[in-house]
């Protein structure tokens, strides 16, 4: 009994994992036609590995009040912050939550968009009316100001909660796109064939239609990661999320409000999170651009 339970529970997980790795592989193969996109993907991989590896290796920098706002030196590669803590190790450690929130938010909003977008396209009728109507409404809501109000109310201590909150407003664009894709894919011959074989809606959805949208979904996934990171760091900058722990957004907030901008020495203190966030966003935007180029043959370079 227990064995069958775990078996049935594990199989979808394994299938999901296989589809995810297939997705990454097919994304990379799409990207390999485009050198810039491939470079961006590798840089992103390096950033992710460093961000998730560093907290295990690098100690949390300790304050040293005798040595605040120090300029870069051999001991402190990027100088020290307002309480004398090493900026470089903060940069190394600070990426983890930023990327985690981005990943979770993107995963959640992609999930919502795929499930309900496909549902709207496949079922049609009033289900479609309600889902697209809702998407249109949420699309109009100024998400960032509302997020700020919510963040002030919810006292966001957990990155996951923050991510889900960001995802709650991030799904409509992708949903409408998925709906459009499914609408066009479901008229294709092989889907017609699957339907005439009576393979069932879940099979057609997950085996026939969705796998053909993998690279497309990957593009939107990365895009919604950039949006989530924008919102998250923005919340930290305004100070509406708790300023505890190592995080590029928190670094930016502290460097800005603790007056690092008034000390010429601490230029690199505030530049560190700026460069980190910008490079992260740049690699992801470059990746989405290259994917977009790969989908649209007219944009592809001649020859």
């Amino acid at each position, binding site marked *: 009994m227990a064995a069958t339970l775990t078996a049935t529970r594990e199989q979808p997980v394994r299938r999901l994992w296989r589809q995810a790795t297939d997705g990454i592989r097919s994304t990379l193969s799409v990207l390999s036609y485009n050198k810039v996109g491939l470079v961006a993907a590798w840089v992103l991989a390096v950033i992710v590995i460093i961000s998730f590896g560093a907290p295990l290796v690098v100690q949390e920098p300790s304050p040293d009040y005798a040595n605040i706002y120090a300029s870069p030196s051999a001991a402190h590669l990027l100088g020290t912050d307002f309480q004398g803590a090493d900026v470089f190790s903060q940069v190394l450690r600070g990426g983890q939550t930023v990327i985690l929130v981005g990943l979770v938010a993107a995963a959640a909003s992609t999930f919502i968009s795929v499930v309900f977008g496909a549902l709207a396209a496949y079922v049609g009728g*009033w289900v479609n*009316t*309600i889902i697209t*109507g809702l998407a*249109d*409404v949420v*699309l*109009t*809501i*100024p*998400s*960032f*100001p*509302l997020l*700020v*109000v*919510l963040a*002030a*109310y919810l006292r966001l201590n957990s990155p996951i909660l923050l991510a889900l909150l960001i995802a709650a407003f991030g799904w409509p664009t992708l949903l*409408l796109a998925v709906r*459009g894709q499914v609408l066009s894919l479901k008229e294709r011959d092989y889907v017609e064939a699957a339907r005439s074989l009576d393979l069932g809606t879940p099979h057609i959805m997950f085996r026939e239609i969705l796998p053909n949208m993998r690279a497309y979904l990957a593009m939107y996934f990365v895009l919604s990661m*950039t949006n989530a990171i*924008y919102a998250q*760091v*923005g919340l930290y*900058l*305004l100070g*509406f999320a708790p300023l505890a722990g190592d995080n590029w957004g928190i670094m*930016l907030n502290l460097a*800005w409000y603790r007056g690092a*901008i*008034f000390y*010429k020495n601490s*230029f690199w203190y*505030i*530049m560190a999170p*700026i460069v980190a*966030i*910008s490079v992260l*966003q*740049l690699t*992801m*935007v*470059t990746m989405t*651009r290259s994917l*977009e180029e790969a989908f*649209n043959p*007219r*944009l592809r*370079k001649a020859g």
Partner: protein
Amino acid sequence: MSTVAIPGALAAPQARAPSFLSRVFRNYYVGRLVKALVTVYLVVTISFVVIHLMPGSPVEVYIYNLISLYGIPYNDAKQQAAALFGVNVDAPMLQQYAQYLGQLLRGHLGNSLLSPGTSVASVLLAYLPWTLFSVGLALFISFILGVTLGMLMAYRRESALDHVLSFMGSVFHSIPNYVLGILLILVLGIQLNVINIASMRGSFSPGVVPGVNVYFFLDALRHASLPIATYVLTTIGSWMLTMKSSTTATLGEDYVTVARARGLGDWRIMTAYVGRNAIIPLVTQLAISAGFVVGGSILIETLFVYQGIGYLLNSAIAQRDYTVMQGIFLVIIVSVIVANLLADLLYGKIDPRVRIQSGSGG
């Protein structure tokens, strides 16, 4: 506009009944209007609920301040607060909601909780023009510049110009606008000391009297220049790149080849055939980004201490001024919806392929 909000909201769930309602819905403009009103109603409700769920009402804050600062007993402090605010913040939420909607229908936005006696409308009127001025001007500049550069890039594909502009466009498009704002202050204001940041705070210099004259306009422009520069730099990249791909796609269309074969002049082909068609997808984006920029102004205006609606929202949230927050949300949402409606109308005007009657745009 708000008077029809409630009937609109009731109409939506009945969309199942196919005959009459679907015919009404199939009318493009009615559909758009109903959707817009439903959206306004929903956002008003959502913002009301969210704002009223926030812990720490301004009245409570005031009471606790009285207690801690002056040692006044709780009951006395509460009475003082009630007398000062004149608003029953303790009333059940449903009652407050009904009251709020009723007021809204009569065009009243209520009074600011923190500055008693000041109406929300007057507060909004003092801040809104600055946001509209800076955001509007920035959008205009970046759209025109971006579209021009984008077309240029498409015509000179693979040239050095194309590569440089593409790269810069991607970089500025990826950097979050508030990060770029910090960079501008950091580099221009502090490291290079080219501009005097302190004197550029606010929306105009103290002592300058607002009025219709060149001096005031120049002063306002100087104060808005950093926010505008930030908006332009961060949005121009996406206009350029979108216009480039749109133009590139259009250049491959048969009708362009035919126009060339007919021997039409390059300029005529560029403006009447390529440009006119390539710009279509950007128009809807313009509307969406107008809303986004107004909503995102909270970060930029707070950074530059520019007294627009975003700056107001930030301080209203920090001080828990419910009524002002509600007013701002209403303004933002209405501006987003108006921008969307405008885009739709424009879309129909510039894209002859759009059959307005069919409604669903995809």
